[in-house]
């Protein structure tokens, strides 16, 4: 089973708390270790100072025996420090003075000679009954005032249990502070992130509000934070495109339905009239043939509509081939020549030898639509010219015809679907020019039209790839 992903708010808050715990732990550990090290080094320095003091006192005593008989001079130095342990041995190992002996013997370490000053390196760890301690052993000369003096061995040890207790307490405090801090950081982080996500929730609310019949809602991007502004702009852009598409689609569906009414009506009425009484076989044949023509018209209408719908959704894959443009225009010329000739119109080709990368079927379709459109609008004796020439960064194909032309009022609309400048005269479904424009858009090209002083020219401009 797949786990549901955590909410962004929770995720950010958890990350925040993880980060704060990690930094608290690092800082706490540092503080603890610093304290521990400082305490230890201060203790060691104190230990050395005491031994130095003891050495001086011993040197001031008349003899080693005086240490055993009256050790007070020595023990007084340790007054108030009941964690210190002192042992003084004679040169032969006989104990002269001993305070609070531990059950465990002190380890054997070399004594520091009299003439050498004590350093931190002379301090050793020592294991009392419980906890740990530090110890130092040094040689001292009793009665050094007299000639020679007697060597004795001073061992001073210190138990550190109370120090450890202190450190443990400190660590406990640290842990408590750390836990509290992390908890606080998590809660605050969660609250802050949640607050920042409020904007995002408003996007969700807006998105929930949108349907195909209510597409005019937009996000306000001015007062949004930078990160969300981008999202908002993208979201609004998507809504604009969707709204545009939906509007075009519904307009398109309405146009199509509208346009299908005429042929369907013809079919229906014609058939019903024919069936209203008995007819001769010839009459039935004529009816069926006429119906078949209407069906073909409907079928073409559907095909054209589908073509436009696909071109709109960019679902049409272009199959570009390198074409000899003059040959292509000549082919179209050959096809329409008979038709033009039949109505007394001259069809010319004036093309440079050009090679272009265009989808051949679509090129044929676009130019044919223009020619098929031009011939019926050219008066007998006039001419239709197909031309092609190289222009800056591309080629331009023109289909021009002589004749009264298209009224300026119609020009901006003639590429619209189902638009008819002259409803009575137009034979096609009014999609021909829209298809030409769609084909040009698919190729990233442009179509323009110009109609004045008895010449109408459609220009197709293809950019060089």
């Amino acid at each position: 089973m797949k786990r549901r992903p955590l909410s962004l708010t929770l995720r950010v808050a958890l990350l925040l708390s993880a980060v704060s715990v990690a930094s608290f732990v690092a800082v706490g550990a540092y503080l603890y270790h610093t304290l521990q090290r400082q305490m230890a080094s201060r203790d060691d320095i104190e230990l050395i100072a005491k031994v130095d003091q003891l050495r001086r006192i011993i040197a001031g005593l008349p003899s080693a025996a005086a240490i055993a008989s009256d050790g007070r001079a020595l023990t007084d130095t340790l007054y108030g420090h009941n964690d210190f342990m002192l042992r003084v041995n004679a040169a032969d190992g006989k104990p002269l003075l001993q305070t609070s002996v531990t059950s465990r013997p002190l380890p054997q370490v070399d004594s520091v000679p009299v003439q050498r000053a004590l350093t931190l390196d002379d301090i050793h760890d020592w294991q009392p009954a419980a906890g740990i301690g530090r110890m130092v052993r040094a040689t001292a000369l009793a009665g050094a005032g007299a000639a020679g003096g007697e060597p004795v061995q001073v061992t001073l040890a210190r138990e550190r249990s109370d120090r450890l207790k202190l450190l443990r307490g400190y660590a406990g405090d640290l842990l408590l502070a750390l836990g509290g801090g992390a908890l606080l950081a998590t809660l605050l982080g969660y609250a802050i992130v949640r607050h920042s996500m409020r904007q995002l929730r408003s996007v969700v609310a807006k998105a929930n509000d949108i349907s195909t019949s209510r597409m005019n809602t937009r996000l306000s991007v001015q007062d949004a934070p930078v990160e969300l502004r981008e999202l908002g702009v993208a979201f609004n852009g998507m809504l604009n495109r969707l709204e545009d598409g939906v509007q075009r689609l519904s307009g398109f569906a309405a146009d199509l339905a509208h346009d299908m009414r005429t042929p369907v009506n013809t079919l229906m009425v014609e058939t019903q009239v024919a069936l209203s009484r008995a007819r001769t076989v010839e009459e039935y044949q004529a009816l069926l043939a006429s119906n078949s023509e209407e069906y073909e018209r409907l079928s073409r209408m559907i095909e054209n509509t589908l073509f436009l719908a696909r071109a709109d959704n960019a679902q049409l894959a272009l199959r570009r081939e390198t074409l000899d443009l003059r040959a292509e225009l000549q082919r179209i010329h050959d096809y329409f020549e008979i038709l033009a000739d039949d109505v007394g119109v001259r069809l010319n080709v004036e093309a440079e030898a050009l090679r272009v990368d265009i989808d051949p079927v679509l090129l044929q379709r676009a130019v044919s639509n223009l020619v098929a459109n031009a011939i019926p609008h050219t008066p007998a004796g006039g001419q239709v010219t197909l031309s092609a020439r190289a222009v800056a960064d591309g080629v331009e194909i023109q289909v021009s015809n002589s004749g009264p032309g298209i009224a300026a009022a119609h020009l901006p609309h003639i590429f619209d679907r189902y638009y008819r400048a002259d409803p009575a005269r137009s034979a096609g479904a009014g999609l021909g020019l829209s298809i030409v424009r769609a084909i040009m858009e698919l190729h990233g090209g442009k179509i323009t039209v110009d109609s004045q002083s008895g010449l109408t020219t459609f220009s197709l401009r293809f950019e060089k790839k």
Partner: protein
Amino acid sequence: MKILIVEDEPKAGDYLVKGLNESGYVVDLARNGIDGLALALEHDYELIVLDVMLPQMDGWTVLARLRERKETPVLFLTARDDVADRVKGLELGADDYLVKPFAFAELLARVKTLLRRGPVRESDILRLADLEIDVLRRRVTRGGQRIDLTAKEFALLHLLAKRQGEVLSRTQIASMVWDMNFDSDTNVVDVAIRRLRAKVDDPYALKLVQTVRGMGYLLEARE
């Protein structure tokens, strides 16, 4: 020539059977995918015309199952002509496809092409009644009398003569004579036929170029 049609739409199935019967084929009809597959596996058809949208088992599945056992040529009919759909059909092993709505003449032409085995050698001289077409020399005579035709008129007559007795739709003619490969609204083909007739038929009693209203044209001797 035995053909199997698999089509669930009752009217479409009936007219396909009728049309192909009348064109001289023996036709079986299955009205759903399961029956269609069973029939196709049981009998040895020369061609299967398969609709894609079928109840119980769709055309894709029928085609895939059939191809596991047999290589019978399949022409599939579809109302969706997305490129992806077409590619899918051809990849599954269909031999050709036709998008609805289609002209009956177009279906007939595809059926004939699929049933034709091996390359057909085209003869150099085509004859119908007293019409003679010398393809190599591009000469046309009727009753020994020379007829002058333009290049396109010759191409048109040659096409009709090659496929004599077969109805050719305007779209097919435009594609094969002028290489115009889309369904256009214009009546170029009608005008071209009229001009051809003026030269080939009008001076003679026996008419050869026939109009089949609503379908297209064919070359056939008719009094």
